[in-house]
C-alpha cells in the first residue's frame, strides 16, 4: 500500500514508521497517489497565530473573540478540551473555562498569514477555492508531472511549510470530490492527513449522520429529521424523484451526496451570490428608533459594497435574531435590481414593520441577493414615489462627496440614531 512520511515527505511502500527518518507521522492508503481533490483547514487558526506571536500563551487555554456580548470566534485546543466551542456565547465559554485568556481578534494579522498560506498553495495549483481565511479547496488534478510528485506529497509538503515558515498547523482531507475532501479534513484534526478513496466511499458514508453535509443548516436538518433521514443509508433508500419533490433542488444534490458524488468544481472565482451586513447589539433592544438607525447604517454598508463591486440585487433580506437566539428572516423581491441604500433601506424598513414580532433583538442584518450587474439597475423611476428619483440623485451626489472627502464627510441624520 502506498505510504508517505509527513515529516520528510518520503514515499515508501508499507510500514507504520518512515523507513528514512523513523517518524511515526505517516499516512498510507491504497489510493493515496491517485486522489487529487483536497481541502486544507487550519487548526484553530486565530488561536494558533496568537500563540505563535505570544509564546506565553502556548500552554494556556486561549479564546479569540470579543465584547461583552461576543461569541467565541476560535478556541485553541486546550480550551476545546474544556468544552469551549466556536460560536458559543462568551459568558458560557468563560463558565466552562474561567482561566481562559480572551484575546481580541486581530484580523489584519490573520489576513496577512492567510495571504502567505495562499501564496504557498499557489505554488501547488492555480485551482484554489478559498472558503475563508483559514480553509480552502485545492484541485491538484494533472499536476503530478509538473511537480514530479503525486498530490499527496505536495499537500503534506504544504502543511509542513506552513508549520515551518508561518508557525501554524493545518489538516488535509484528500479525496475524489469536494464534499468528501471537506469531510476528510475533519477526521484527523489537528495536524491531520485523512484520505477517503473511491473504493471505500459508500461504506465510509453508510452510517454517518447526514448532518455532516456541509451547507445543511438547522432548518435543513429538521426537514431531514421529519422525513426520517438520519444517516446516509436512510438517504440512499429514497428515490431521486421523491427527494426532489420533497426538498427541491437540494433533493437532487442529496441524492448524489448519498452516493458520495459531488460534481462541483474547485473554482477560484466562485460568483458572489449575496451581499449582507449585520450587527450584534451591546444590549438587546426592541426600540424601533434605534433599530431604524441600524437598518439605515447596514443598508448603506450593503449599498457601498454593491457599488464597489458594480452589482445590484433584486431580493432584499432582513434578518433579526431575538434575545432567545431565535432567528427571524424576512425577504422580498423588487421589480428590478437596486444598489441604492435608499431603496434597500425602505424595503428592509417595510419588512421590519411587517415582522409580526415584538422583539427585543440581539442582532440585525440587512442584505441583497439575486445579484446582477449594476448596469440597468435603478434606471427606472417610480410613478407612485416621485421623490425617489431625487433621493437617488442625492445618494449619488453623496457618494461623490464621500469619495473625495472621506466617509464621514456627509451623513444622513438617520445614521446618527
Amino acid at each position, binding site marked *: 500500500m502506498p505510504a508517505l512520511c509527513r515529516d520528510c515527505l518520503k514515499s515508501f511502500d508499507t510500514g507504520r514508521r518512515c523507513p528514512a527518518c523513523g517518524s511515526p507521522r505517516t499516512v498510507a492508503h491504497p489510493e493515496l497517489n491517485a486522489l487529487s481533490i483536497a481541502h486544507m483547514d487550519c487548526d484553530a487558526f486565530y488561536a494558533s497565530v496568537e500563540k505563535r506571536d505570544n509564546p506565553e500563551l502556548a500552554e494556556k487555554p486561549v479564546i479569540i473573540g470579543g465584547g461583552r456580548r461576543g461569541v467565541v470566534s476560535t478556541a485553541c485546543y486546550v480550551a476545546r478540551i474544556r468544552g469551549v466551542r466556536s460560536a458559543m456565547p462568551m459568558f458560557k465559554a468563560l463558565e466552562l473555562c474561567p482561566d481562559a485568556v480572551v484575546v481580541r481578534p486581530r484580523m489584519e494579522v490573520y489576513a496577512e498569514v492567510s495571504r502567505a498560506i495562499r501564496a504557498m498553495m499557489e505554488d501547488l495549483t492555480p485551482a484554489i477555492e478559498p472558503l475563508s481565511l483559514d480553509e480552502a479547496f485545492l484541485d491538484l488534478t494533472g499536476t503530478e508531472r509538473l511537480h514530479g510528485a503525486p498530490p499527496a506529497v505536495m499537500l503534506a509538503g504544504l502543511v509542513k511549510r506552513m508549520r515551518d515558515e508561518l508557525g501554524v498547523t493545518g489538516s488535509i482531507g484528500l479525496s475524489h470530490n469536494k464534499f468528501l475532501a471537506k469531510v476528510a479534513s475533519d477526521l484527523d484534526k489537528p495536524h491531520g492527513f485523512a484520505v477517503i478513496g473511491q473504493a471505500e466511499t459508500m461504506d465510509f458514508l453508510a452510517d454517518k449522520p447526514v448532518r455532516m453535509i456541509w451547507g445543511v443548516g438547522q432548518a435543513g436538518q429538521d426537514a431531514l429529521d421529519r422525513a426520517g433521514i438520519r444517516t446516509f443509508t436512510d438517504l440512499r433508500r429514497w428515490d431521486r424523484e421523491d427527494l426532489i419533490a420533497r426538498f427541491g433542488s437540494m433533493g437532487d444534490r442529496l441524492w448524489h451526496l448519498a452516493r458520495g458524488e459531488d460534481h462541483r468544481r474547485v473554482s477560484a472565482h466562485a460568483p458572489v451570490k449575496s451581499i449582507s451586513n449585520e450587527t450584534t447589539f451591546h444590549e438587546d433592544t426592541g426600540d424601533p428608533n434605534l433599530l431604524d438607525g441600524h437598518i439605515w447604517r447596514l443598508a448603506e454598508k450593503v449599498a457601498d459594497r454593491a457599488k464597489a463591486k458594480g452589482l445590484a440585487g*433584486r431580493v432584499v433580506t432582513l434578518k433579526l435574531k431575538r434575545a432567545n437566539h431565535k432567528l427571524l428572516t424576512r425577504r*422580498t*423581491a*423588487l*421589480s*428590478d*435590481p437596486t444598489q441604492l441604500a435608499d431603496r434597500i433601506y425602505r*424595503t428592509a424598513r*417595510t*419588512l421590519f414593520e*411587517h415582522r409580526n414580532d415584538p422583539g427585543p433583538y440581539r442582532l440585525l442584518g440587512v442584505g441583497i441577493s439575486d445579484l*446582477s*450587474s449594476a*448596469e*440597468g*439597475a435603478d*434606471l*427606472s*423611476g*417610480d*410613478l*407612485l*414615489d416621485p421623490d425617489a*428619483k431625487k433621493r437617488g440623485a442625492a445618494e449619488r451626489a453623496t457618494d461623490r462627496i464621500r469619495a473625495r472627502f472621506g466617509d464621514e464627510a456627509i451623513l444622513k441624520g438617520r445614521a446618527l440614531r
Partner: protein
Amino acid sequence: MKFSIERGTLLKAVSQAQSVVERRNTIPILANVLIEAEGDGVQFRATDLDVEVVDRAPAQVERAGATTVSATTLHEIVRKLPDGALVTLTEDGGAGRLTVEAGRSNFSLATLPKEDFPVMASSEYTANFSAKAAVLRRLFDKSKFAISTEETRYYLNGVYMHVADGEDGKSLRCVATDGHRLARIDAPLPAGAEDMPGVIVPRKTVGELRKLLDDDDMDIAVSVSETKVRFATPEITLTSKVIDGTFPDYTRVIPAGNTRRLEVDASEFARAVDRVATVSSERSRAVKMQLDQDRLVLSVNAPDSGAAEEELGVAYDDDKLEIGFNAKYLLEIASQVDRENAVFLFNSSGDPTLMREGNDTSAVYVVMPMRV
C-alpha cells in the same frame, strides 16, 4: 354518497377546484375538494382560505352525501380517463375511502371528514350587479399585466375595481400598477353598481375569474362588500377576500399635460421593439426611442453583448425627443392595443408617458421612462 357523472363534466369542475388549491400548504384539508351530492347534481368546493370556488355539475345521484378527497389526485385521475367515460364515485360511511370507477379502472382514495372542511363565511354584500363576461374580461385582461409582485407593496398585488368619473359619466373602473407602469380601464357602470365600495381584487382571484369569462354573452353576477367580492355564473361561484389596504391615489400619476404625440401601428411597433431588444440579456433591457419628424428610431446598446437599431415610419410632428423604456414594459402595453393605432403622449425624457388606443380614453396606460 354515490353518483355517476360524465367524464368531461367532472373534469371541468375538478380542474377549476384544483387550481384554487395551493400546491404548498401545511393544512391537509386545504389540499382537498369537498364533494356534495344531492338531488340531481353535485357540488365541488375548494379553497385556500382567501379564495373559494364552488362548481355545480349535473349528475345521477343515487345516494346523497358528502366527503373530501385530494383535489390534485382526483384531477389527475379524471384527466387520464378516456373521453366520454361515465365515472361513478362512491363513498361508504365509515371506510374513509372514496371509490372512483370508470370502465375497468377502479381507484380508492383516502378521504378526510367533510366537517373539517372550512367554508368561507358569507358576507353582507353592499352592491349586487350583473355584467357581461366580455366587459369584465376586458377590464381585467387589460389591467392585470401591471399588477405588482412586490410583497412589501401588498396593496398593489391586485386590481383596484371601483366606481369612477370617466369621460362619459360614471364608470366601472379597474386600475393596476407596480410603480413602473399603470393601466386604467373603464366600462360603462352597470345598474346596481353605484354604491359599490372600491376593492382590490387579488392577483390569484383575477386569474381564477378569467376561467369564468370565456363566453362573451354570459351574464356574470357580481357582488361586492368591503371585505369580499363574488363572481357567479349559473355553474360556478368564485368568492374571494379582497386585499386589506388602501390603493394609492393613482389620479395624480396620470399625466394630463403631455402634448408631444406619436402615433404608430401597435403590432409593427411591438415587433420592432422585440427585435432590437434581442441583443441585450439584461433583466431590465432599455430601449431608446429617438423621435424626429415622422421618424422613430428604436435602438438598444448593450456594451457586453451588442447593439441594434431599427427605423419605423410614424406620425410625429413635434420637437426632437430621446427617451428610454424598459423593453418588457413597452411590449406589454403595445400588446394591449388591438383595434387602432397606438398613441403615445410624451412630455420630457424624464416624465411618465401616456399610451392609449387611438383617441379611446377608456383604456389608458402610463409608463415610467428609464435613463438611457
